[in-house]
């Protein structure tokens, strides 16, 4: 149970500034997701919190204690790695109990804790296997089990689902969310996938180029993206964004409209030609070529009669336009 407070955290590798001053408070029990494009510094920031990297500047408090210089094991955190990082030469039982045995916990006590943890994660039957004899999802659960037995104040996850296939990924998403609900521990979760961020987070931190673009709940970010970057990053399909002359004509630097807020009909603001239609079943994504605008993506109902080559009019839904 702990609050995590970052003040002015910076990190450079040699001459390259990777984290450029981060101020952030993650409240006790919150599920906080760091999201951003690959290379924006998410992992680095998480590893600074973990103590695997030392920040070049700034301070870090966990549960009210300054831990900027503490060893990872003394910070009350635990981490689930993208590769799971299970010890290949140890059984599941030994993997989960490794930290406890280092801490010289008595053997029968370790056995009791490991058994209990395995039960909550449905790993009882796998306890004597080696990691290479497990499936991806099972490895994931062992990695989580290893973290739980540390009884941490903060869980850190670095893209834990990116090595799983799509169906397993959505299942594990739910399992982790349920775990959070049950433990009510602070969790910090790194992903480049905005769907994961939207579905799991209490609070999303959008990172870009080593700085924070916006912090907020998923719906805040969706409804009121503070920057064009956030606007383009959150939401799928991506928001239509226009810059330069087009935007100036509409009285701004950048003009944006989400595909689901583009209305198609027999008349409207922009005349366009249908280039391509993606049928998703319930919905259809229509790609238009609009004169004077360029390409425009619209989301419409699945039973749309539009065909490539056909003409259609498009209008922005009032009140849903973004001007920056």
């Amino acid at each position: 149970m702990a609050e995590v407070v970052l003040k002015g955290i910076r990190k450079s590798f040699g001459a390259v500034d990777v984290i450029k001053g981060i101020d952030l408070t993650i409240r006790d029990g919150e599920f906080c997701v760091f999201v951003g494009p690959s290379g924006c510094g998410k992992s680095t920031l998480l590893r600074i919190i973990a103590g695997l990297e030392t920040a070049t500047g700034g301070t870090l408090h966990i549960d009210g204690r300054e831990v900027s210089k503490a060893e990872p094991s003394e910070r009350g955190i635990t981490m689930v790695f993208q590769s799971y990082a299970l010890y290949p030469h140890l059984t599941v039982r030994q993997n989960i109990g490794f930290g406890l045995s280092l801490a010289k916990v008595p053997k029968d006590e370790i056995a009791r804790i490991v058994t209990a943890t395995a039960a909550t994660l449905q790993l009882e039957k796998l306890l004597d296997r080696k990691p290479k004899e497990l499936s991806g999802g099972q490895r994931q659960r062992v990695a989580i089990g290893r973290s739980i037995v540390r009884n941490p104040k903060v869980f850190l996850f670095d893209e834990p689902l990116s090595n799983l296939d799509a169906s397993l990924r959505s299942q594990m998403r739910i399992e982790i969310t349920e775990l959070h609900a049950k433990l009510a521990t602070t969790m910090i979760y790194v992903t480049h996938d905005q769907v994961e961020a939207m579905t799991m987070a209490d609070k999303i931190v959008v990172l870009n180029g080593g700085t924070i673009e916006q912090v907020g709940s998923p719906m805040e970010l969706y409804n009121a993206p503070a920057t064009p970057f956030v606007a383009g990053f959150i939401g799928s399909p991506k928001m239509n964004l226009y810059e330069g002359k087009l935007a100036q004509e509409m009285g701004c630097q950048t003009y944006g409209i989400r595909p689901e807020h583009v209305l198609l009909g027999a008349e409207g603001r922009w005349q366009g030609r249908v280039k391509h239609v993606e049928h998703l079943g319930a919905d259809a994504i229509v790609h238009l070529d609009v004169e004077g605008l360029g390409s425009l993506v619209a989301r419409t109902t699945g039973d749309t009669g539009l065909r490539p080559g056909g003409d259609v009019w498009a209008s922005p839904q009032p009140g849903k336009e973004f001007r920056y």
Partner: protein
Amino acid sequence: MTRRQYWTGIIATVLALVIFVVPFVFIAFTAVKDKAQASHLDFTWPLQFLFWQNLVDVVSTRNYMLLLAYFNSSIITVGAVAMLILFGAMVGYVLQRRQSRWNKVIFGCVLAGLIIPPAVVPTIWVMQGLGLFKTIWGMVFIQVAYGLAFSVLLYRSFIATIPRDLDEAARIDGARPLQIFLRVILPLLKPVTVTLIVVQSIAIFNDFTNPLYYLPGKENVTVQLTLFNFQSQFSTQFNLLFMNILLVTIPPLIVFIFFNRQIVAGMTAGAVKG
């Protein structure tokens, strides 16, 4: 298999038997002959098979010197290989995991160790100063000093294949540096460790030059030194001399039969990268 592959194979096998196998058969034959027949030095079928008698004669020569030699050689080999494994892995680990200007220094030392011939007399001078000259322990440390470069190189390239995540997971689990190394990294190095044990044991067991310089004296004899000295002792008893050769050939043969794969891996891995 084509006809061509078949016949090439037959011819190659015959040639290999003549070139590579005959000398070993010659050793075995001469080793079991009686003194008179052995002195002809010819490649003939033994008239008598005196295996046990020649064996006992060689072993009991000069007050069972050969037994002492095997004992000394074993101690030197086991002691040196144990240190080469532990020290080599520790250096290879730090060298691979940590990037700093010290790495260049360490790497320079490794290359120096591979290329520079040891300066013999100054080494004796240093060992005398430390009381290590003519001692088994001195010999062990010499073998460690000379074998380290190869161990470090082999370990370093293998450790590069072990993900750093494992070290970090162990750190988070509360492992101290030595615990990470001993409980996570070292067990994962087993394949190279086996290779190194085999390759270095053979090299150290077969070493002649270093014991010749650093381990003179009757009570310190090693297997290779004994063999060399028996060359003059047995100048008229070739059967016993070749029985001795047979005895020093058997340990590597046994190791080779059991660890063929590891030896091949070690020799080529160390070589192709080096």
